[in-house]
């Protein structure tokens, strides 16, 4: 039986008088590739911060069974735009030996760009660099917050291929936070939809039923598939 990596039980979070999350229960197991999706303001980033220990829940529990976590923020390295910093320097700032740095560069297919400046790379390539850095200390769990925002569709395809490889070949547990329901549903092995409450947790195919999407995004919404 697969080991549990995250166990969230009856978790609620309120900010001042506003309820952000209400009694969410969710389990993530080793080897899962979970898409955590919901519209803007649904509480998904708050849930992520609680999982990462950056916020405390108002009630309920979030148990993390591993300390080996890699995290890729939506705007990782935002501060440094325009500053001369190489791919290798971005990765090595997290520590690690030269051998370990080479390993993650190979794993994420950016070894040939290690001497290039970060701001010379495309958005998709920059995300690979941040994933490489997150993989440096062999995490059991990798969390990515809206990683494909502002990235062109070809790069998105390559990006999801990399995530699938990490999940299937390296056994890495992945949580991908996104508001792009259609894209994510195609790529992940399970989906958790939240909009204050947990609306759905299961196989992505079942989610494509209209009433679930209505619950999530409101009435008169329909899914438009992206073709890459």
């Amino acid at each position, binding site marked *: 039986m697969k080991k549990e990596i995250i166990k969230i039980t009856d978790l609620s979070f309120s900010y001042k008088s506003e309820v952000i999350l209400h009694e969410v229960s969710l389990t993530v197991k080793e080897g899962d590739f979970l898409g955590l999706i919901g519209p803007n303001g649904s509480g998904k980033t708050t849930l992520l911060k609680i999982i*990462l220990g*950056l916020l405390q829940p108002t009630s309920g529990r979030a148990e993390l069974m591993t300390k080996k*976590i890699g*995290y890729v*923020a939506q705007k*990782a*390295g*935002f*501060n*440094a735009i*325009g*500053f*001369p*910093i*190489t791919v290798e*320097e*971005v990765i*090595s*700032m*997290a*520590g690690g030996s030269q051998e370990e740095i080479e390993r993650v560069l190979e794993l994420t297919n950016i070894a040939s760009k290690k*001497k290039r*400046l970060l701001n010379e790379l495309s958005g998709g390539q920059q995300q690979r660099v*941040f994933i490489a*850095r997150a993989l440096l*200390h062999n995490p059991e769990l990798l969390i990515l917050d809206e990683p494909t925002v502002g990235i062109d569709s070809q790069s998105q395809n390559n990006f999801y291929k990399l995530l699938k490889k990490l999940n299937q070949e390296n056994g890495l547990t992945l949580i991908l936070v996104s508001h792009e329901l259609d894209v994510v549903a195609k790529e992940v092995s399970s989906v958790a939809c939240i909009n204050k409450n947990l609306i759905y947790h299961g196989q992505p195919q079942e989610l494509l039923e209209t009433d679930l999407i209505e619950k999530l995004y409101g009435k008169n919404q329909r899914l438009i598939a992206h073709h890459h």
Partner: protein
Amino acid sequence: MLEIFQYSFMIRALIAGLIVAAIAPLIGNFLLIRRFSMVADTLSHIALAGVAIGLLTHTQPILVTTILTTVIAILIEKIRSNQKIAGDTVLAMFLPGGLAVSVILISIANGFNSNLFSYLFGSISTVTSAEIWPMLILGLVTISTVILLYKKLLFSSFDEEGARLSGINVRLISYILMTLTAITVSLAMRVVGILLIGALMVIPSVTAMQVAKSFRQSFFYAILFAVLAVLVGLFGAFYLDLPAGAAIVIVSLGIFGVVSVKNSV
């Protein structure tokens, strides 16, 4: 031997200038990457209050200034990291605050005197042997700390949240950086003067950004440009009878202009 080297006060000026040229861009690079370079200007206005207290109480101004700017630098970081007030707003509060305290202290002391004026605009040629040693020690402490904590300083400046999640004590690292900034401001005020410190901490780093091909290389270029500015500025000041602090800043801006033009061609 050149005439400039025949005067012991100019030798001391060169040593003091080179110490500051080595450490100001070292700190400036991290402040730039954090988009927090205005903290140097804010602390320089706090330093003015420190100098005024030192002159009023007849204690060594550089000592009072180092303590005062360090305390305020840590307070600024504490308020900024609580994230209830934006970083630039915190600076906008402390800058006039430092100036206001200085003006009151100066008025108590019955106005400006030439001593205070030398701190405002720098008076590198009057640096004494007794001042060189603390400058050298504090300079070495700053350089050693940056070398020792290089990766942690870089990670927390580049991606604060990512650094925190990777187990780095980001708050402690930020306090250390602010303390180093305060020390640098206190040391630099004798060289370029309180009103021009920000320039020496920022201009060489911004110039280096235009030519460097890595973050490490940006330190090399920033220090090179700062050393060049100090040397040319001091020689210019000596032979053309100009105020040294202002000459150093003008040369620094000149290097920026030349590099920018060369880069755009």
